[in-house]
């Protein structure tokens, strides 16, 4: 089983960190993993994306054209990747920033108001964590407990007060995915 995940948004939305979260969790589950960012003359407000592959087998190309899952955190990302998701795949989008939908019959589309949920928790920067919660719940690519452990290790080891808001963000995203009927 191989999950090929592209996470895309504006620079500053935590796109690269969200991908690393998946990669660290994949490693913790003993999977083969690759994480590769788009790199170059990037800046805050520009576009950023990363590709994460989680696999039971050795991974060839770290970049792929047709992902099995996408997180789109801004409108250009939805336009770019909505048509590339593999049939049977999964598309998570932040509905508080994106008005349109992919509308594909063959893809599970999860519109989660990630930024609003994160703001409700008092941490607008956690929209990426909400989206990761939705993706993990929708794809089953990783066990949610593994992602929770890694999330806490990466965000709350030095700042224990960040533990609960992060977990709440992750679970809120997962709840939306679970509630999304397809």
């Amino acid at each position, binding site marked *: 089983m191989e999950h090929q995940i592209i996470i895309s948004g504006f620079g500053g939305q935590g796109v690269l960190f969200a991908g*690393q979260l998946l*990669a*660290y969790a994949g*490693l913790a589950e003993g999977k*083969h*993993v*690759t*994480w*590769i*960012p788009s*790199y*170059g*003359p990037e800046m805050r407000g520009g576009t950023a994306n990363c590709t994460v592959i989680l696999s039971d087998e050795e991974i*060839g*190309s*770290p*970049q*792929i*054209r*047709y992902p099995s899952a996408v997180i789109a955190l801004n409108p250009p990302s939805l336009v770019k990747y909505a048509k590339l998701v593999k049939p049977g795949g999964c598309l998570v989008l932040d509905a508080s920033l994106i008005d349109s939908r992919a509308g594909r019959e063959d893809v599970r589309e999860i519109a989660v108001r990630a930024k609003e949920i994160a703001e409700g928790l008092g941490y607008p920067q956690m929209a990426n964590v909400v989206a990761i919660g939705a993706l993990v719940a929708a794809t089953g690519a990783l066990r949610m407990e593994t992602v929770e452990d890694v999330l806490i290790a990466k965000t709350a080891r030095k700042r224990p007060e960040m533990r609960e808001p992060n977990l709440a963000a992750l679970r809120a995203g997962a709840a939306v995915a679970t509630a999304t009927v397809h």
Partner: protein
Amino acid sequence: MARELWKGNEAIAEAAVRAGLEAYFGYPITPQTELLEYLAVRMPALGRAFLQAESELAAINMVYGAAVAGARTMTSSSSPGVSLMQEALSYIAATEVPMVLVDMMRGGPGLGNLAPTQADYFQLVKGGGHGDYRPIVLAPDSVQEAVDLTYVSFDLAERYRNIVIIAADGNIGQMMEPVEMPPLRERPPVGSVDRGWELTGAVGRPRRIAHSLNLSPEEMARVNASLQNKAAAIAAHEVRYSERFAEDADLLVVAFGSAARIAQTAVRQAREEGLNVGLFRPISLFPFPTDRLAHLATRAQRLLVVELNAGQMLEDVRLAAGAYAPIDFFGRMGGVLPMPDEIYDAIRSAYPHVGGNGNGKGKRSLPAGMRPLTGSWSERMSLN
């Protein structure tokens, strides 16, 4: 040792530290800068030398000095920076002192761009600087292999008193993958043992002069002969490659580094669909795995070379295997990465039993970016 997630640039830096790197000199350039950044913290913490020079030119000449003084030393850069270093690399080769260079290749020629390419194969493998000399060139295709090759590169450099180059690109430098780090090694300090080339004072031994000026043609010829003997020994002992389904493949894909990773996905897909395709991946670009490739080419019906350039390793493949099998080429230039499906299409098109081109005979259509090889370089280029 546990597996940890490492970014390529930082993993290479840590591997060098663990191999006993004593002195690093460098200058920032994307997509290599994290390597220097990592060592800027790590080296002083261990009481070792780190210096960000004012230019690549200065950095490589500092490496020259450190090598002559007996230190385990390295620098790292990306394509334009490595071009700047070529004069000193030639001097270092002539002086026969060991050093390691990491090149995270990017788009070129010129200042180019930051994207991953393999466009500096000729420069790295065929010498780069002036004069007859051959660096050992190692091309990793994963972060783990980058670590392993970096770790061993210092030993190779000292064994042969030769330049060792780690030839990678931004894909390897920027990617994060699980890595098992080798143990930290301590090298006996400079001066505590005599390694045969370092200048530590001639008390108790004949004097030694480290230099690259050989005004007498006879003396120069002796140095040349020494370099050639060394290259022959390296070619005999240091060939490295990796194979997948290569032994019985009808179509053998040949690719190195990042291109091989992309090709690996395409080869696997073709295999799953019943095509008898294999992958041959040179790891040492010098010494090139000529004999092994020639052997495989006598069995394969066709070869397909895949590179992130206009066809540079292709020339070495043709020298090794051109007499035994027809060779196709698929290349992408400028940092435009091919996706696995494009290489898959190239495989389908080149496959001996598909598209009416059995055993390489007959007409066939080629996907964009792929060209049939002819005898003439200009003919090949005009097809692009």
